[in-house]
Structure formats: structure tokens, C-alpha cells
């Protein structure tokens, strides 16, 4: 209660200050992600481009906000992510940290920003713990999380009869969270988990794990991994005839860049959950076209879209309160409805979860696709109200 009052007071003061003088506000954004490893195409330079696009579209310069963007490679390592975050906040004066894929790295950054009271806009990381037990008053989890993936793909697979599961899990925070959340959905809907094998991250040869999954006799092999690991798992499953033998693969986290890397021959028929697809509507097509021109021609992933939208919303909040003060800006971000061309309207909950629709897609067959990047067919839109974990189920200390 006391905290809320203080926050409101700061917001008010900050607002007054902005009204009194049009002094320039300066903001420093740090984009921290994988720029060289297996997640570099899903996040990487694309997230920096998305950040710059958000700054440009917001018209930061015209509105008296000078924004500086810095970026770094955390190599998917929590220790590197922590070091960079401390350096950015303590020495370089970074106000907000953006993206941060790799759940273990994001959880490390989350602890530091909570302590240093700086804002953290997560787009890349998946673990639902970021808005659960590890939630922080300074963190917004924008794009997706393991719960929403489980709820999308996991539920869809069980509904079509895939009621026995075996997991191939990347052996770190993200894989564990995805496996946990999907197991919960499977069991809740009357299914059964027959077994799990945890593979080293990143991996290369998945054939032995796939054969263990095959031997389990489960109807569905759940791939609780991401990026290159998922690509290799799916390729090798095709090679070992696992799908032909009657088992289904559930790619629990598949990005459009993964589908591009697999090729439609191997990827066709996969059912997957995403928060964004470039070909959803005119706004997403226009954004994606610009994004592709600024980058290397690739279409944006949902992570890039989330970076764009979260930075845009952050800048709106900075303008509204007239400063970059973390408490005031965060209070404003949660108070204002979000509205952007990529995710439409939405809200940020007390636990930091950004809520919007999620989509269930099926990967097209080579015949159905009209060319490169025409990969998804929309199966179902999961409405915002049910797309994410109910706030009371997350065990987030901020909610009680």
C-alpha cells in the first residue's frame, strides 16, 4: 500500500515536472541477447533493428526524448548476462534492458534489475517463472511464455487424441519450465506423461534421445527445446521415420526462422503457438517488410515484434510521466493500455505479464506455400483472457 502511494506521488511529481519545463529527457536502452549463438537469428541484431524502428515510429526526437541504444552479446550465459547488466546499469547509465533470450540468463538479469530498480522488458526468454515466483516490480514479460506455449500447442495436441507424452527437454531453466508447464496441461486434460529425457544444451545429435522417445510408445514426443536444437530434433525425427511410424511431434517452441531452416519438407504439418506472424494483417505486413529491408531480408520473429512493441509502450510511458524514473514509468506502463500495430490492444498485469491474443498455426506443405516465408496457416486464435496463466496461479509475491 505504502509502495503504491509512493509510486503515485512520484508519478505525479514527475508529471508536473514535465509539464513545467520541456527539458529533454534522455533514455538509454540496452538490448542484451544472443548475437552469435543458436538464438542469434530469433533475437540478435533483429531485436536492435526492432528497437530502432520503435524509436523512429514513436518519433522520440520530435517529442523531446533523446534515446541511445546499446547492444551486447550474452552468449546465452547467465554469468556474461549478469556482468554486462551490472556494467550497463552501474557504469554506463542504462535505464532499460530489452529482450534477453535464454531463460537462465533472463532470470539472472531479472535479479539484478530488481535490486538496481531498473526496467526490464523481456521478449526473448520463455520461462513463466519471470511472472511467477521470480516476478519483479520492474519486469514486463511481453511476448510469450512457457505456460502460453503449453496452453496452445500442448492443449491442441491432447484435444486431437495425443494423450500420452514423452519429452525431449533442453537441460536448463527454459526446458525445465516448458516441460513442467506442458506436463501440467497434459495431465489436466486427462493425458499422461510417460517419460522425459534431458539433453545437453546446445545439442547436435538427437537421434539417441529420439529413439528413447520412440521406445516409450508415447503418442506425442514433446520437444521442450528451441532454435537449432528443435531444428535438429525435427530433422532427425524425419530421418529415423518416427512420424511415419505413428508418433506425432509437438514443437513446443518453434519460430518462423526455425521453419525456414528446416524447409517445408521436414516442417510441414507441425502445429505451433506464436504471438505474432508477419502475414496476419496489413499492419504486420508493413512492419515486417520494413524490418526485412533494414535487416538481412529475414521476416521478424515474434521476439522481434515483442521488442518493438515493448519499447514503443515504454517510450509512451516515459513521455507521459516526463522522466525515465523506473518506478514512475513502470506504474504508467501498467496503468496505460498497450496499443501497437503488431499486438493490438492489451494490458500489463501487476505480475508483469503482458496479455494479448496468441495464435495456433499449422505449418503449410510445400504445395500450399507460395514462396519463402509463406509458412503458416492459422488454425485458431487463443483469446487474451485465456492465452496466459491466470494471475492468481503464478505464485508471484507481488500479487498477494
Amino acid at each position, binding site marked *: 500500500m505504502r509502495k503504491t502511494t509512493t509510486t503515485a506521488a512520484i508519478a505525479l511529481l514527475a508529471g508536473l515536472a514535465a509539464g513545467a519545463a520541456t527539458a529533454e529527457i534522455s533514455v538509454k536502452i540496452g538490448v542484451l541477447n544472443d548475437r*552469435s*549463438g*543458436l*538464438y*542469434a*537469428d*530469433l533475437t*540478435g541484431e533483429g531485436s536492435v533493428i526492432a528497437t530502432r524502428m520503435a524509436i523512429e515510429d514513436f518519433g522520440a526526437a520530435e517529442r523531446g526524448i533523446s534515446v541511445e541504444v546499446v547492444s551486447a552479446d550474452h552468449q546465452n550465459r547467465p554469468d556474461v548476462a549478469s556482468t554486462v547488466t551490472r556494467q550497463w546499469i552501474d557504469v554506463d547509465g542504462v535505464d532499460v534492458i530489452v529482450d534477453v533470450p535464454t531463460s537462465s540468463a533472463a532470470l539472472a538479469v531479472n535479479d539484478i534489475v530488481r535490486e538496481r530498480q531498473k526496467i526490464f522488458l523481456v521478449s526473448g526468454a520463455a520461462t513463466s517463472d519471470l511472472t511467477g515466483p521470480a516476478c519483479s516490480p520492474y519486469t514486463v514479460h511481453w511476448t510469450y511464455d512457457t505456460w502460453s506455449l503449453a496452453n496452445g500447442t500442448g492443449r491442441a495436441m491432447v484435444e486431437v487424441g495425443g494423450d500420452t507424452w514423452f519429452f525431449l527437454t533442453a*537441460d536448463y531453466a527454459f526446458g525445465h519450465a516448458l516441460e513442467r508447464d506442458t506436463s501440467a496441461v497434459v495431465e489436466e486434460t486427462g493425458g499422461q506423461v510417460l517419460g522425459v*529425457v*534431458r*539433453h*545437453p544444451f*546446445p*545439442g*547436435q*545429435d538427437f*537421434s*539417441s*534421445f529420439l*529413439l*528413447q522417445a520412440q*521406445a516409450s510408445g508415447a503418442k506425442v514426443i514433446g520437444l521442450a527445446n528451441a*532454435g*537449432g536444437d528443435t*531444428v*535438429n530434433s525435427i*530433422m*532427425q525425427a524425419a*530421418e*529415423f*521415420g518416427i512420424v511415419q*511410424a505413428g508418433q506425432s511431434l509437438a514443437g513446443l517452441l518453434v519460430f518462423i*526462422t*526455425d521453419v*525456414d*531452416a*528446416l*524447409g517445408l*519438407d*521436414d516442417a510441414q504439418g507441425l502445429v505451433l503457438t506464436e504471438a505474432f506472424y508477419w502475414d496476419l494483417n496489413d499492419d504486420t505486413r508493413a512492419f515486417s517488410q520494413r524490418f526485412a529491408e533494414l535487416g*538481412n531480408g*529475414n521476416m521478424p520473429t515474434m521476439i522481434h515484434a515483442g521488442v518493438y512493441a515493448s519499447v514503443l509502450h515504454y517510450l509512451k510511458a516515459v513521455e507521459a510521466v516526463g522522466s525515465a524514473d523506473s518506478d514512475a514509468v513502470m506504474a504508467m506502463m501498467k496503468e496505460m493500455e498497450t496499443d501497437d500495430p503488431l499486438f493490438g490492444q492489451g494490458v500489463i498485469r501487476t505480475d508483469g505479464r503482458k496479455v494479448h491474443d496468441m495464435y495456433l498455426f499449422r505449418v503449410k506443405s510445400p504445395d500450399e506455400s507460395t514462396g519463402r516465408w509463406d509458412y503458416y496457416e492459422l488454425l485458431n486464435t487463443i483469446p487474451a483472457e485465456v492465452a496466459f496463466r491466470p494471475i492468481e496461479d503464478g505464485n508471484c509475491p507481488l500479487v498477494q
Partner: protein
Amino acid sequence: MLFDLLGVTPQALFSQLLLGLINGSFYAMLSLGLAIIFGLLNIINFTHGAQYMLGAFGSWMLLHYTGLNYWYALFLVPIAVGFTGVILERLLISRLYHLDHLYGLLLTFGLALIIQGLLRNEYGISGKPYAIPEQLRGGQNLGFMFLPNYRAWVIAVSIVVCFGTWYMIERTRLGAYLRAATENPTLVNAFGINVPLMITATYGFGVALAALAGVLAAPIYSVHPNMGADLIIVVFAVVVIGGMGSILGAILTGFGLGLVEGLTRVFYPEASAVVIFVIMAIVLLVKPAGLFGRTV
């Protein structure tokens, strides 16, 4: 009875052993190239992983830009990548022979980073799809597992190449020159044999072996710029366990460690990424020159 005790079915065990052997084929081919290069040039070739990746990428490029399929790639790519190795050796590596190992290691490591960085910049990290050739699709049901024809092909090629190389080096006149030049290059030079040429050719051959492994890997692992970086550290451990510079050691350890890794994946999958390094540490403690190495 034994299988009950171990908690796995014989089917599972046999299939994992066979898969281990397939991975071992890659380890063997890569560590063989490294061992040959180290034996003659005394260079720890850290570019090996990048050259393996170039083999895979070369196959993809050949198909993508010129339409030439896998069977062409199998011959053309190792020759082309081997030739880049020859240029590399002439231009850069040959200047370092009189210096400490460390300089060669730094140079080749730097080159690997540059090659990977260039390709990453151009093609991204997600990888390129490369289909299994028509003739090798499908597989055999062995009773205990489904063995894809392509994997069987990989084992066969690897065994032929590895033991062919071993035979050439240990049993032919050319091999005898090579071994002699390894022992005492000055003396061999004095007998009228062109040692610098032999060194260049050896480096090219070692690189071509890496590229061949890359071509073989292209259809089963996704073709991406970091694919070699992920593998090369393991392969170095294989070479160290086998004994630096030992040809037969590299081959046998490569296959053997593939098997050990395969077994780890059944009994304790979480440890499968480190098991080779644990073995390396033990071997270094007990037999510092490696299992097949000679103490110097």
C-alpha cells in the same frame, strides 16, 4: 537378466551402441585429420571445425547456386576446401613453424572465428536445409531399431576413409616419407625429398578430410556456421585421449568415444556432453601421452 539389472532393453542398448558408432564416425574422421596435421606440422589446427563447417556449407552452396547434387559435393567440396587449406598453409601457417605451438593455435583459432563470423553475417545462424540424397533415403528395420540408410552410409564411408588413410601413412612409401619427415625433416630434405611441399599437401589433405566429414554431416545436422565450433572441442578431447599425432589412436578413440557417449545417453543423458572430458581428465592423469601416444 543382465539387461534387467541395467534397466534397459537389449533393443535400446544395441540401438544406442549403433548410434554411438555413427557419431564416432564423425569423431574419427575429424580427429584423424587433426592428428595428421599435428603429427607433421606440429600445428594444433583450430580451424578444423570451421573447415568441417565449410564442407557442409560448400555442399549447400553447390546445390543452391549451381544445382550440383550431393554426389558431386562428395568429391568437389573436399577438393575445393582442401585447396583453400593449401593456400592458408602457404600464406600464413608456414610462417609460424619456427615459433611456439601457441602461435599456430592462436592463428588457426582466429581464422576459425573469422570464417564463422563471415558466414554468420551472410547466412545467419539458423541453418540451411540440405536433403538426404534420393538414393540413400529410407532405412532398414534391424529388429532392434530402424537404421536410416544414410547413417549406414556414413559409417561405411568413414571406416573406408579412416583405414585407407591409415594404410597410406603406415604401409606405403609415401607414408614412410611422411613419417620420416615427421621425425627429422632436415634429414629427409637432405635425401632430396621436397619436405615443404609434403607439409603443404598434408595440411591440404587433413583439411579435405574435415570437409568430407562436413559433406557427410550436411544432410543429418542442420547446416549452420557454428556447427563446427560445437564439435571441435569434443574432437580435440578425442585427439588428446588417443595421443596427439597418433593416427591409429585417433581413429580407434574416435569410434570408441562415440560408443561411450552413446551409452551415457541411455544411462545418464544429462552427462552425455561432459563424459568425454571426464575421460580425457582421467587419461591425462594416468597416461599423459594419451592411450596410443608415445612418451616423448
